[in-house]
């Protein structure tokens, strides 16, 4: 099987869907001639033409709104945000227009908004944000974040085929760092299904995105100390896989919630509530969060390093919890 980077896997997934379904088209800034700031859409203009790979003005709100309009009349637009940080500029169209149409009057709104998010590359406060929770808290959307190349392809394809607006977070730190065997065949990874990224028994860490790798690194470290940590990769944040989360918590009885996003109001809270309500009896220890602190993402490497969760911090928290 060919080995692809996370980025190439996304490209291949979009490419295949463009080939498969003529109603799929791309909208975004610098995605055509330039192939996108990170080159995710490289080659697509040449292959699919300017009709289907549309370079837009710098108008995030109109881009999202236009995607909604096109989706309403039967297209499947895929929007690129040059950085997910700028999704804030198209926010209203996402939460008020796209998310609510189906509920309000029925039509499907099949569209994807995708782009790079996350820190670790010294991008500073505006090229590093994790802002998935705004959308996890918006009924009517789906929110997806792959951690592997295999999933990246399977999830982008599933997202494009989905009949709802999907916010698809690509972690820029993984773009070229993560490689995987990725089948050339047509497969999807279903939305709403988590996966166990690593089996364990003593405690489980529920996470997603780049932090899956951090968790695995910590688990590998902990294994040497005789602590067996399971790693659950949510893959889809909305709707998230309650069953998989609860199953892992029931199995391990101790749970660590990990994300790169800031703490207050983060995904860990949502999971804590689920677990506190539905797996309370199964818990043998406190529900522990490992997250970024409540600050903007700082720029300078020492600051960013302090800000980001890493394997050391995860292992420390896990050791304490395991010993509880």
């Amino acid at each position, binding site marked *: 099987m060919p080995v692809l980077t996370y980025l190439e896997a996304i490209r291949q997934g979009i490419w295949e869907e463009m080939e498969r379904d003529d109603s799929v088209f791309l909208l975004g800034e610098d995605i055509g001639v330039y192939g996108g700031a990170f080159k995710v859409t490289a080659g697509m203009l040449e292959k699919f033409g300017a009709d289907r790979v549309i370079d837009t003005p710098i108008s995030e709100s109109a881009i999202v709104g236009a*995607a909604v*309009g096109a989706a309403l009349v039967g297209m499947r637009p895929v929007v690129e945000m040059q950085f997910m940080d700028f999704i804030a500029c198209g926010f209203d169209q996402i939460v008020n227009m796209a998310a609510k*149409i*189906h509920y309000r009057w029925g039509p499907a709104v099949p569209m994807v908004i995708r782009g790079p998010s996350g820190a670790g590359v010294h991008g500073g406060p505006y090229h590093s944000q994790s802002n998935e929770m705004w959308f996890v808290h918006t009924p009517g959307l789906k929110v997806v974040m792959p951690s592997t190349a295999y999933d990246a392809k399977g999830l982008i394809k599933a997202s494009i085929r989905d009949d709802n607006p999907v916010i698809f977070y690509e972690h820029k730190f993984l773009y070229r760092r993560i490689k995987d065997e990725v089948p050339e065949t047509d497969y999807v990874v279903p939305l709403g299904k988590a996966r166990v990224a690593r089996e364990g028994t003593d405690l489980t860490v529920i996470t997603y995105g780049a932090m899956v790798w951090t968790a695995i690194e910590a688990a590998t470290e902990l294994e040497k100390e005789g602590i067996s940590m399971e790693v659950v990769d949510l893959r889809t944040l909305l709707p998230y896989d309650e069953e998989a989360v609860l199953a892992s918590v029931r199995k391990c009885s101790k749970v660590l919630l990990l994300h790169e996003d800031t703490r207050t109001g983060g995904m860990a809270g949502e999971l804590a509530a689920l677990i506190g309500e539905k797996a309370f009896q199964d818990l043998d220890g406190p529900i522990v969060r490992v997250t970024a602190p409540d600050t903007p993402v700082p720029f300078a490497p020492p600051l960013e390093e302090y800000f980001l969760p890493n394997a050391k911090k995860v292992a420390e928290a896990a050791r304490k919890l395991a010993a509880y």
Partner: protein
Amino acid sequence: MRRFTLRPLNRGAALKGRHKVDDAALVKMLYALKLTREAESRIENVLYRQGKIVGGVYTGRGQEAIGVGSAIQLAEGDWVLPSHRDFSSFFLRGFSLRQIMANWMARANTPTRGRDNTLHLGDLNLRVIPIISPLGDTLPVACGVAMALKRRGQRRVVLVHFGEGTTSRGDVHEAMNMAAVMQLPVVFICNNNGYAYSTPATQQFLVNKLSVRGPAYGMVGFTVDGNDVLAVYEAVRHAISHARKGLGPTFIECKTFRMAGHSAHDAAEYVPREVLEREAKNDPIPRFELTLLGSRVVTHQDLQDLEQKIRDEIDDAVAYAESSPEPEGSTAVEGVLCGADCWWKKPIDRDEQRLASATASRELHGTDD
């Protein structure tokens, strides 16, 4: 039937052509105008006061000519995104009065199933995409519809309506610029009714004519008398034909007046009395009636008959709405996501609507397009 010749309404401007509208279309316009006025009056002055309307009431009193003069020209495959006061667009696109009325009463058998209010009514079959409250949000959506139509090589157009106050929103700018640079078949129809809630247009922008905004994006801009249904018709006709030829969008400012408060609870005390009195004389409906009477397209008897017909239709719609069921509370949690159980795919009562739609489009095909 005699033909009625449109006056060239914007002398010296780009509106040079003359165009004939047949009597049937003229009568239909009058019908739509009067029906809109009467239905909204019933809603605001009777049903709302009786406590039968759920939520707030916004009407288009005084600016009905804009929706009528534009929607009447649409072919079946064209799209419209009405403003929050564009009752007539819904009606002319084929929504039944019954459904519209039922939605004002938050009933279950409407396109929103009671989930959304006022004129937030959409129907893909009728090619109407409803406004949402955040003003200006429909303009980018109109661009997206137009992109799709253009890509398919369909010679279809998209009309989008909005108020002068809405022009201050960033989305309006982004959409107009995008439509221009991509040469999309969109007609931007701005109703300048003098006020945005309590805010006069003079505090909204500094320009006298909003139509200067057109050229700022490289598109044609017109300012027309929005209380003259034929002036609106003529401007929109040019814009539609321009768009159908692939020549891109047009911006049309229709000067009009909001002959009511912002909503039923607003007495509009901030509007100077002289302005109210002056504008009362400029009511688009008597104006058009006089035109049609004067040119003998209709008689006084015709008008009386029409009024009776309208009253009957409204009575019927009100009775229908009042006897319609409220939605079941538990349905509130259905259909947030579109999936296997997608509520949209379940049949709802659309028969009437389809019928109305078919009729409307048949009638429309009578007009030159």
